[in-house]
């Protein structure tokens, strides 16, 4: 479904701030694959996501999504097929617009059934209501409330719903539960797993929680210094423990692990 071939990206080339964020990264995601990504801050996880969504163009290499070469496709054109959730729950929704209007934005444009002058129909409203009810947060009865009044967890759940209201070719989750309290994070995580499993969405998820990285999905990637240094699935992944994963990281990276967040996540 997603095929990344030898992409590289250097920010601020030729200046003192030069930073190579991606080095010859290649990644093959089969349809329905759910891979978690771990790695210290600055390893290139978010940069990889931004390369896929088109926030910038890569310096070299190619990106294919569903067989189509999207390497130089504009960001807003690619996003039709890509769902992207960020750590900050405020980024995914328009605060001054109602829940219904937010859902409509996500749905009407992507589904391709509506003209620019189409309005939210009764049928659309029914659909939104149905989908919102799945969240079990009572949002289906607050369709006319501005999204700005919702809590972070509710907004993130709504964003998840919006990103998947039309099944995307790939779903990118960038630590999307990291800013939520533990109970809400668990709930949003469960929703994510349910939706992804039910619709067999191809999914990449960044996490700093090592347990989560091994338990969620069917594949675990590890990034360091702009490269994917570990890619495990199947039996190898089943036998992996958090300890061995950390050992692996140390060995592969060839340096002492000094990231507090990863250590604390044990």
């Amino acid at each position, binding site marked *: 479904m997603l095929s990344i071939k030898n992409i590289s990206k250097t920010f601020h080339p030729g200046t003192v701030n030069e930073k190579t964020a991606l080095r010859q990264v290649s990644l093959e995601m089969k349809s329905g694959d759910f891979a978690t990504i771990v790695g210290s801050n600055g390893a290139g996880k978010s940069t990889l996501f931004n390369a896929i969504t088109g926030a910038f163009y890569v310096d070299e290499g190619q990106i294919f999504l569903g067989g189509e070469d999207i390497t130089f496709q504009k960001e807003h054109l690619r996003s039709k097929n*890509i769902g992207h959730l960020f750590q900050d729950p405020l980024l995914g929704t*328009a605060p001054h617009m109602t829940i219904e209007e937010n859902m409509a*934005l996500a749905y*009407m444009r992507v589904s391709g059934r*509506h003209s620019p002058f189409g309005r939210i129909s009764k049928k659309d409203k029914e659909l939104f209501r149905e989908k919102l009810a799945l969240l079990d947060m009572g949002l289906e009865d607050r369709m006319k409330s501005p999204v700005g009044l919702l809590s972070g967890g509710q907004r993130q759940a709504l964003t998840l719903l919006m990103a998947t209201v039309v099944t995307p070719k790939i779903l990118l989750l960038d630590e999307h539960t990291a800013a939520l309290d533990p109970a809400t994070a668990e709930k949003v995580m469960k929703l994510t797993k349910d939706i992804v499993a039910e619709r067999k969405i191809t999914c990449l998820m960044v996490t700093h929680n090592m347990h989560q990285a091994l338990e969620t999905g069917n594949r675990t990637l590890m990034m360091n210094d702009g490269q994917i240094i570990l890619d495990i699935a199947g039996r190898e992944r089943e036998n992996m423990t958090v300890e061995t994963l950390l050992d692996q990281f140390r060995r592969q990276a060839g340096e002492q692990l000094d990231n507090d967040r990863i250590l604390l996540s044990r």
Partner: protein
Amino acid sequence: MSTIFTLSILQSALELGCIYALIAIALYISFTLLNIADLSTDGCFTLGCAVGAMVTMAGHPILAFFMAMGAGVCSGFITAFLQTKMGVQSILAGIIVNTGLYTINLAVMGFSSNVNLFNCDTLFSMAKQVSENEVYRSWYELGIAAAIVLLVSLILGWFLNTSLGLSIRATGDNAHMVKASSINPGRMITVGLCISGSLTALSGAILGQYQKSCDINFGTGQVTIALASLIIGNTLIRRGGMLKRILGVVLGSCLYRFIVAVALRLNLPAEAVKLVSAVIVAVAISFPCLREKAGFAKKRMEMRRKVAGEIRTGE
């Protein structure tokens, strides 16, 4: 008090309020919804007035409105083009276009700073001939202005709930989200500013016919006044659907004109009009902030009194 609040004051305040409300509605789109401070408003207003006046002089008073709106669309398009394709900051783009429009406006008026329409048919003069009735004769101008504003409000209220309208609103609300939901933000800004420009120019064209003249300086300060109307409107009506908010802006514009009219009746010289406007604008804009501070101060006083009372009873 009866000398201050006369019917004719109310009437002319409503007439001007409705005509200028179109600029406030234009700013509602660019400033409130798109979150862009579009300073080309002054020039665009004069452009609409100039184009409208010239077409009216050529004998097409109705076509004049549509030509003016077309000119406004062009002005809005250039402002949007500069900021979406050329990387010019939005405030600068507005200022640049505003400056350029001064020359364009003079050129439209045949390089004279003033044009009058006394011997031409205008929408107002044509409507006047419809009936000899006294009541009709005194209210037809307000009727026309109100009808146009109502029509524009209804169309806009409908438009802002369409797929395209929702996208425009989202662009100003959360640009991050818009990019992630396959909406081209540049295009939305362009569409929004074109609509906003057309409404500003329409307002200019109507004013030109209403006052039977066009002056190169008609636009000066319009952006401030429209902003004041917009903020008064937004303060009065703080929630509700799009149509309700737009009508709130119209109400704000009428209220602003009324306040100015009343202020000028207090034996102030005509030269004071700009100062009065500035004061009203400043008060209107700072009102929401002052209200919040007053609420906080009140709360703090109560707390202090309560604590003081507790200490006293504790002793």
